[in-house]
């Protein structure tokens, strides 16, 4: 096998001129669209978080569908899911399908309530809601910091997605560090510029191009490729052979068999908890919330819950392309000459398709990185300016100042992600992202439980969060990669009491909820104050045409300051 690898590597190391040209042309089109986006559903001024950071809460069903699809199904997903299928099989890779199926019933249950209360009180982030629900700055800060920190490595991973494409296209080689990373640098500088000028409208417009390209590429691939490699039976046969061989080799080397064709009885818990934990964590991330809150009515998100699964179907097909690559004998070799499973999808397209179509596929992945990277940086920046800057540093900040801080922060966040990827090992970004998922799930009780009840006590929620964070981090640290011997080697750990492998986030979550229930019961029994609630039950059902919301928003724009409460209706948003 080894000699063949070197031959393949030398075949593919050159620059693919046609593919690269197509990639650059499509990238330029998207760049122009990004700058033009500030005219899309034009607002009088982009100088507020409502407009810059949420697109004026104006997006209807179809724009939201493209925006959320572009946001959740990231370039990294498109690179990593087939890579996991290719390398270790169904448990690590295909769980993405049940994960993105059960995701939608879960958000159906709580997102309409979050939309309504946010609309009614002008909340831009989940930490805003927590602040209003309990009037507790510490709990709100805990939610804000968790979201902010967990989003950073996620942005960095989008760069890893672009890098994978550029590497297969032949760019990014050489010893000169500036020439090596220049393409990535340019791509991100352009992204930063149009995010700064157009806000959330930029990814909303680009998402159209991205999603159409992705659908086109994957459908063509899934129709055309199986016939080229002997049909689906041959593909599944090749995958099974590879997974069996992997496991046999692992057992011979004294390691536990970790590859799977179809999950075996030892992997049921892992498969189910990975799907459940990921689904519950995904809509705690600031970027998912930003895209959801930008919709124009509480029902937009529910309608979307029934049409977004179209992306899950495509993601499943894409996962199977990882196994098509096994049957096709794809050899993902990086420019450094080492095997890198992350390159398998770009490499498969370069091997099997004419250069121009490979270029379209590369563009789909690269543009696919820009949409979530833009939304994530906007969301992280909103979190910073609302819940850290305004709450702790400058309490009398005006909406214009908030928007300015957000815009600058969106640049800083991207710069940080770039430095992260260029200076540290890619594996660090992946490890932190795994850890980020575990962390995000620990904010689920604070956000979702609080949408339905105030039985939980703010101290109970805070303590539960802290316990979940510490437990999750320690457990993840203790996962050692059996091959490299490094910590943070994965996200599966032994579930105490069940003694099966499961997703650490879910174990930490259970612990989190137990602590929250016990402490809340004690605090409630001792009548410890649970903070002042600025919301009323009706807020959780309010829709876009609610007259009181309209009035609040008008006050907001004309006075350029905190919401007033002119007729003293209890529950109207007090000054923040």
């Amino acid at each position: 096998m080894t000699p063949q690898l070197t031959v393949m590597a030398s075949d593919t190391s050159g620059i693919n001129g046609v593919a690269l040209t197509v990639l650059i042309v499509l990238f330029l089109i998207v760049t122009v669209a990004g700058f033009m986006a500030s005219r899309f559903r034009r607002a009088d001024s982009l100088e507020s978080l409502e407009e810059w950071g949420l697109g004026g809460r104006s997006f209807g069903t179809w724009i939201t569908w493209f925006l959320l699809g572009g946001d959740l199904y990231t370039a990294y997903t498109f690179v990593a899911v087939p890579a996991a299928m290719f390398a270790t099989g169904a448990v690590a890779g295909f769980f993405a399908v049940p994960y993105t199926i059960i995701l939608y019933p879960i958000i159906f249950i709580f997102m309409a309530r979050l939309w309504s209360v946010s609309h009614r009180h002008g909340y831009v982030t989940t930490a805003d809601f927590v602040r209003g629900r309990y009037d507790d700055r510490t709990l709100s800060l805990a939610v804000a910091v968790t979201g902010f920190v967990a989003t950073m490595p996620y942005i960095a991973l989008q760069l890893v997605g672009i890098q994978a494409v550029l590497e297969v296209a032949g760019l990014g080689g050489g010893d000169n560090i500036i020439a090596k990373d220049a393409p990535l640098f340019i791509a991100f500088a352009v992204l930063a510029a149009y995010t700064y000028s157009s806000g959330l409208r930029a990814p909303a417009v680009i998402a159209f191009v991205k999603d159409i390209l992705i659908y086109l590429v994957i459908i063509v691939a899934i129709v055309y490729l199986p016939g080229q490699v002997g049909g689906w039976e041959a593909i599944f046969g090749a995958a099974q052979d590879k997974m069996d061989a992997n496991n046999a080799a692992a057992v011979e080397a004294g390691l536990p068999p970790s590859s799977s064709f179809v999950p075996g009885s030892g992997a049921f818990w892992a498969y189910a908890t990975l799907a459940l934990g990921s689904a519950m964590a995904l809509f705690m991330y600031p970027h998912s919330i930003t895209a959801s809150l930008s919709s124009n009515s509480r029902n937009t998100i529910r309608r979307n819950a029934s049409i977004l699964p179209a992306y899950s179907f495509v993601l499943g097909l894409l996962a199977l392309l990882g196994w098509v690559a096994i049957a096709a004998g794809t050899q993902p070799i990086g420019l450094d000459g080492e095997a890198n499973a992350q390159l398998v999808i770009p490499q498969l397209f370069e091997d099997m398709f004419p250069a121009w179509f490979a270029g379209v596929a590369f563009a789909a992945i690269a543009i696919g990185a820009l949409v979530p990277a833009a939304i994530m940086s906007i969301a992280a920046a909103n979190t910073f300016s609302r819940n850290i800057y305004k709450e702790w540093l400058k309490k009398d900040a005006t909406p214009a100042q908030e928007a300015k801080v957000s815009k600058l922060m969106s640049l800083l966040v991207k710069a940080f992600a770039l430095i992260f990827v260029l200076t540290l090992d890619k594996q660090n970004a992946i490890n932190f992202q795994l850890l980020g998922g575990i962390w995000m799930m620990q904010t689920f009780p604070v956000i979702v439980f609080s949408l339905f009840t105030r039985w939980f006590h703010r101290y109970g929620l805070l303590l539960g969060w802290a316990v979940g964070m510490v437990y999750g981090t320690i457990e993840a640290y203790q996962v050692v990669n059996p091959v490299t011997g490094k910590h943070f080697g994965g996200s599966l750990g032994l579930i105490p009491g069940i003694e099966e492998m499961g997703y650490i986030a879910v174990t930490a979550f259970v612990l989190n909820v137990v602590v929250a229930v016990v402490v809340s019961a004690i605090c409630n029994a001792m009548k410890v104050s649970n903070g002042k609630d600025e919301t009323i039950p009706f807020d959780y059902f309010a829709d876009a045409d609610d007259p009181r919301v309209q009035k609040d928003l008008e006050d907001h724009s004309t006075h350029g300051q905190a919401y007033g409460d002119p007729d003293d209706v209890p529950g109207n948003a007090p000054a923040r």
Partner: protein
Amino acid sequence: MNPGNTTPQSRPEQGPPPTDKGKMALAGVLLMIPIVVLLWVPHYAKVEPTLWGFPFFFWYQFLWVFICSGLTYTAYRLTLSARGRTTHKVGEDR
């Protein structure tokens, strides 16, 4: 449909809108079905019966993409009809 379920409120415009709880419960059940089915991995982690070369494990989960989408849409229609419109004028009598 079942007006007896509405909770009386001293100021009606501050409470939740009148809701048909039976329909909401049914919507909740529809939403729970895909979650329970897909988390119960043992019943579908098998190769046979295959369909067009796809092992059962894979085509079954693809099938659930469509079933879940249909269930979610039904739940959406149910919540709409259970709650009617959720907005009203300030002080409007219901």
